[in-house]
Structures are given as C-alpha cells and as structure tokens.
C-alpha cells in the first residue's frame, strides 16, 4: 500500500511515488543494525581487537622490550604448574562467592528501604550512592586509616569492648574479608539504583490486588516483587559477577591497601596478572592467564543465561 501511490488513489496525487524496495521487516532490521552499529563498531575496535591480540599474545614469549618468540602452549602449561596462579583463582572464587550475594542482598534491601518517595529517602539514596562518586584511591586510603592496627577507629571501638587489636589488612585471616566489606560498601549504592529502577517497573495494581486478597508484605515480596524482578536480578548477578572478577575495585583496592598480601591472601587473579605483566615483564604469560579468565567469565555468563533463560520474563 505504501509502496506505490497513483492517480487511482483518488486523483489527489498526480505522480507515482516509489517507496523503498525493502519490506517492513527488512527496514526494521536495518534500523536496528544501524542503531547498534556505533556501539558494535566501537566494541569491535576497542574490545574485540585487543581481545584477539591478547589471545594471540598468550602463545608468545614477550619480553616487554620488543622481542616476541612463539612458544605454543608453554604459557598455558606454565599456568597449570603455577601454584600462585591457582592460589589467585582460589582467592578470586572466594571473593566472587562472597561479594555477589552480598551485593544482591544489600542492593535489593536498600532499594526496598528507600523506594517510597519522600524527602528522607531522596537524601538517603544520594548518601548511599555517594561512595560511587569518590575515587577508589581515596576510598582505599580512608579505609586504610580507619583500619590501622591498634590505633585505628575500628580497633579503638573494639578496645572499648575489651577486644584486642585486630590487623584487618595485615592478617591473612581477615584481609580478604575486609576487602570484601569495603567492596560492598563501595558498590551497594550502584546496585541499589538498579533495583530501584526494577521496583518502579512493577505495577502498583499487583500489590493492591494482593493486599485485597489478604497477602502480607512478606508474601507480596516473595510472590510479586522477587519474581517480577527477575530481569533486574539477572542483570545484577551478571554485572556484579563480572565486577567481582575484574572490576576496577578488584584491582584498585588491592593495589593501594594490600599489594596482594599479606602472604598472597588478597592476590586476586586480576592483581596477579597485573604483577606478571608490569612488575615481571611476563606479557605472554599474563595474556594467557587473562584469556583463561575471559573464558571462565564467558562460561559463567552462558550458565547464567541458561539458568535464567536470559532473564526473560513476561507478565503473562
């Protein structure tokens, strides 16, 4: 119909209008591709390209001064035999397993607490998000001062209750736990905002209907809120997992506060990879480890997609 208008259409138009030859479907597809193109091209150049290069670099010995030598799978064999690499993976798994659920619970909990519109909640939301606006270096330095052995604020408070001095960052039993708590403090405001967006998408009528049917707040939460937050939950779980493995806080906090210590107890995979590259000039080995990390992350992503059916959700 819209392809061709002629005099037969009532004589209002005298010339033939030729529309595009593409079908509606094709035009929509084209528009979609064009919208995605800038991002896709950017990703291809700035992420895809370096990823391919990094993957290739894993098969070379790279001095860091211009010399390359093909070594096949040597870097991967070395990785398998490297106890520190396995140790860093172990630390990373502990960090992810603790951080992701904590971020989910705190993010959702805070969002539920401040979701109602009020002046107090507006201020509370801003305050909770505020850590995100501060440089991670500053965050690390401030926490370091608070956590000093013997004379730090936390140890002073502990002393009031008769507790001995705890070395929060210098004792391998506590250091990773401390970094996890600081990471949660830093990131929870961001996930709170994501959950707030998800909560606002849930129609208020559902809660009204539930109330009329006699459902209490707990039942409403488990029967309405949580199921309808499935897409948001998927996003939060995916992004927080990636953040836990290789987010900026993973490196910055460790670099400033512990340098991977004490006794490698906070040496996350990302930090160990950094050390191999920039302190030891082992660029090939570092690229091989980074490639493995990417594969692990991709596997986790696929698993999450499969478990949640891509976070798909229909109101029906």
């Amino acid at each position, binding site marked *: 119909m819209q392809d061709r208008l002629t005099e037969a259409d009532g004589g209002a138009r005298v010339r033939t209008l030729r529309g595009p030859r593409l079908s509606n479907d094709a035009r929509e597809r084209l528009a979609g591709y064009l919208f995605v193109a800038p991002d896709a091209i950017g990703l291809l150049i700035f992420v895809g390209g370096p990823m391919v290069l990094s993957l290739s670099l894993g098969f070379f010995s790279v001095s860091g001064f211009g010399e390359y030598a093909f070594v096949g799978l040597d870097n991967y064999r070395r990785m398998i035999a490297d106890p*520190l690499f396995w140790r860093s993976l172990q630390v990373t798994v502990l960090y992810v397993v603790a951080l992701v659920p904590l971020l989910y619970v705190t993010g959702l909990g805070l969002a539920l607490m401040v979701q109602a519109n009020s002046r107090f909640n507006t201020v509370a939301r801003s305050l909770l998000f505020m850590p995100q606006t501060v440089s991670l270096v500053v965050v690390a330095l401030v926490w370091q001062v608070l956590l000093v052995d013997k004379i730090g604020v936390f140890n002073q408070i502990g002393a009031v209750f008769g507790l001995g001095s705890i070395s929060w960052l210098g004792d391998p039993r506590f250091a990773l736990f401390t970094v996890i708590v600081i990471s949660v403090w830093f990131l929870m405001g961001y996930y709170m905002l994501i959950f707030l967006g998800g909560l606002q998408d849930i129609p208020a009528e559902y809660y009204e209907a539930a109330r009329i049917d006699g459902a209490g707040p707990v039942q409403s939460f488990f029967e309405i809120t949580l199921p309808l937050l499935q897409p948001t939950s998927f996003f939060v779980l995916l992004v927080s997992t990636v953040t836990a493995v290789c987010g900026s806080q993973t490196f910055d906090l460790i670099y400033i506060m512990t340098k991977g*210590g004490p006794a490698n107890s906070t040496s996350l995979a990302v930090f160990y990879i950094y050390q191999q590259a920039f302190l030891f000039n082992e660029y090939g080995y570092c690229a091989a480890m980074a490639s493995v990390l990417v594969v692990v992350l991709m596997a986790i992503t696929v698993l999450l997609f499969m478990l949640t059916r891509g976070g798909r959700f229909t109101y029906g």
Partner: protein
Amino acid sequence: MKDSPKRSARMLPSRRTVLAGGVAATAISGFPFVSRGYAAQTLKFWQFYAPGGGVASQDKWYEDVIKAWNDSHDVKVELVYVPNNAYMDGTKLPTAFASGSGPDLFIISPGDFLRYYNGGVLLDLTPFIEKSAQDDFFPNVIASRKVNGKIYALPYEVEPMAMYYSVDAFNEAGLTDKDIPSTWEDLLSVAKKLTTPKRYGVLFETNPGYYQNFTWYPFLWEGGGDFQTAEGKSAFNSPAAVQALKFWQDAVNMGVAPRKPLGGGGWDVVPNLASGYCAIMNTGIWAIANLREGAPKFKYGVFKLPTPPGGKYLTIGGGWAFVANARGSNPKAAGEFCAWALGSPKDGSTTRIVDWCTKAKSDMPPTKSALEAGKAAFESGFLKTFTDEIYPGARGEPRMPPPVYKAISDAIQACQLNGQDPAQAAKTASDQIDAFLSTYKGAPIL
C-alpha cells in the same frame, strides 16, 4: 577585467583549506613528539623528583642539574615527573618500553637492573666516562651496575639501612642509650618493653614488594646466608635464611611488631616513628632528611642493625642511578649526559653528588671523591653515625630477576604474617629459585 563573484569566492581560502592548514601547522610545530628532529634535540628524563615533586630540595637539585646541562649543551634535557607509586610498581615505564617509546633517560635501583639490562635497553656508559672517574666509584656500589666490566648505570646515592628509635619512647619505658640492642634477642626484648596498647616496640616492613625484600636481605647475610652459591645454585635453603625468617616472624608473633605500617609503608619514618606508632624502626638513611623536613622537633637516635648469635654485622646499601635508553632518540647524547652529571668530576659531578647526599637528601655518596669533598657534612650529626658505624658494613643491593625476588618475597610473607614454618618456607623458595636458575640466561645475578 572584473572577477566574477564566483571567482572571488574561490580566491579566498575555503573553510576546509583553513582547517587543513591549521592541522598541518599544528602537526609540524605544536606536538614535539611528532617531530623526530625535536625529539633528538630534547631528551626526556623520567624520574619521581621533579618538576613539582614532593620535596622542594630534591626538586631543586634536579632542576639545577638540568639547567646547568642545558646552558652548556645543544641537546637539551627535559625533566618528566612520574609520581613515585606509578614509577616503582606502576605501568608507566613498562608500557612506554613495550610500545617502543621509553624515555631517553630514567633512574633505576639495583632491584630493577636485570629487568632492563636483559631487555636490552640499557646503554653502555663506559665509553663516556674517563677511567679515573670509573675508578672513583666504590667497587661494592658500582658492581651491581656492571656487566662484563662495563658500566650501565651511574649511582648518585647509597642508602644503607639502620635502626631508628624514639628518645621519648625510650625515656617513657625507662630505657637509656645503654639499652640500645646489639643482638636480635636484645632487640626483641627491648621492643617488648617499649610496646604499649597504642604503640609497637619495633617496626619492620610488612607490605610485600621489592622494598620488603631489600630490608630483609641484611638479616639473611648477617647469619652468613645468601640466595645463590658461587656455582649459580640456590643457597636459600640454609640455617641463616631460616633464622632470619624466624626473627621477623617472632617479632610479629610476640605482638611487638605491627602487621601493617602507616603512611607509605615501612620506609615512611614520619607517620610511623615520629607519630609514635612504633618506638624503633628499621629504615634507611633517607629518614634523616625526612625527619628534618617532616618532624623537625622529633628527638631520635640511630643505631646499626643488631646481629644474630654468632653473626657478623652487615647492612644493605641501595640507591638509585641514572641510566640511558639504548633505543632512545639520541643514545649518545643521553650517555654523555649521564657521564657529565655523575661520572665527570671535572664537570662538577662530585659537587652534585655531595649536594644530593647532604642538602637535597641524607645519603652516603657512591664515590670516593664525594666522600672526601663532603667530609664536613658526612662527619657531623647523624650522617657521622652512618659514616663511622653503619656504612662500613654495607653490602650492595643485590640484583636479581623477578622470579627470584618473588620466591623470596613469598617466603618472607608466609613466615612473617601467615605463621608458616620458616624451614619449610626456605625450602620451598629454594626449590623455586633452583627451578628458575636452571633455565636463566640473562646477565649474572649478584
């Protein structure tokens, strides 16, 4: 004949032409790194002191050296300041070299020497230095900067490690100069007396890294240990290594030493010793200048490292050195600059070294002539203690490849902070060092 309006318009440069011209002009004149000619005439010197570094006297020394060179040479040198953290274990230098754009001049410590030497970027400075000037360097200081008799780095300071103590803390605990410990056992006992609910008795570095290893080596050497035999095998699995690992472990386990230092780390004397966080601190000669600037009223004393049973006093002498990039824009001029600045007494290098060691900082000099020329300064105040008692026992900072450093670092960390059995840690590190040495092909490890 009149030009048509169209032609008149054509005679004016179009917007596109103006833009293109601007871009071309900018490319030619505005960005020095684009111009090879400019690069060859201006050498970039990366370090962490100037311009705009944290300590005015050190900033000024660097600025003065560069001004004196630039006033008398055609090829100019430009200082590029890189913050300390970004310089020492940051990405700045490694990425610059990896991308083929390393600085023409930079500074390195012995700990990093092999990394850059084995990478082929250190210029042989020997041809630029007269024989008498080469001989002027103390042999134990220049040794870690030489390969096959050739000099690849010129030091301008030697930084021996010592123990500093707070006079007020000693007085509070009823201790006097007579209680200054001379053995490891004495040190732990005195540290225990100095420990209070808000203060640690003694502080050793606990942050993992090159610096921690650097501060630990003297305790290994004092008991007769080393990390390598003359045959190039690991010597780390030894009673001396076990003893030194246990010494630091005991200090933490007894609760007299902290697990985390304050400020920048175990080198940072003002936030740790002057603030009262600890009463005795294991740090280097630079602490004199740091206390002079950061805590001028703080009363302190200095003593040499205590010794283990049956051991012999030794300390370590680190320090930074000028190096030239063999793959830089003008290696010859860079080499000449290094030699002129630090290896040419007739051009004022002796005075420069004395000024650095006595005015800009508080260090021992790497040359005999500087020690002589600055005699008055080196024989007064706390520098005299270093000159007379501490420096004579200094052994040069070892140079070792990163895998050897890392093996030792892991052993220190595991024992000091994770309660591992020192004998087991020494054996594990030794096995790792042996595995690495069996395939190592770089310059000799010293």
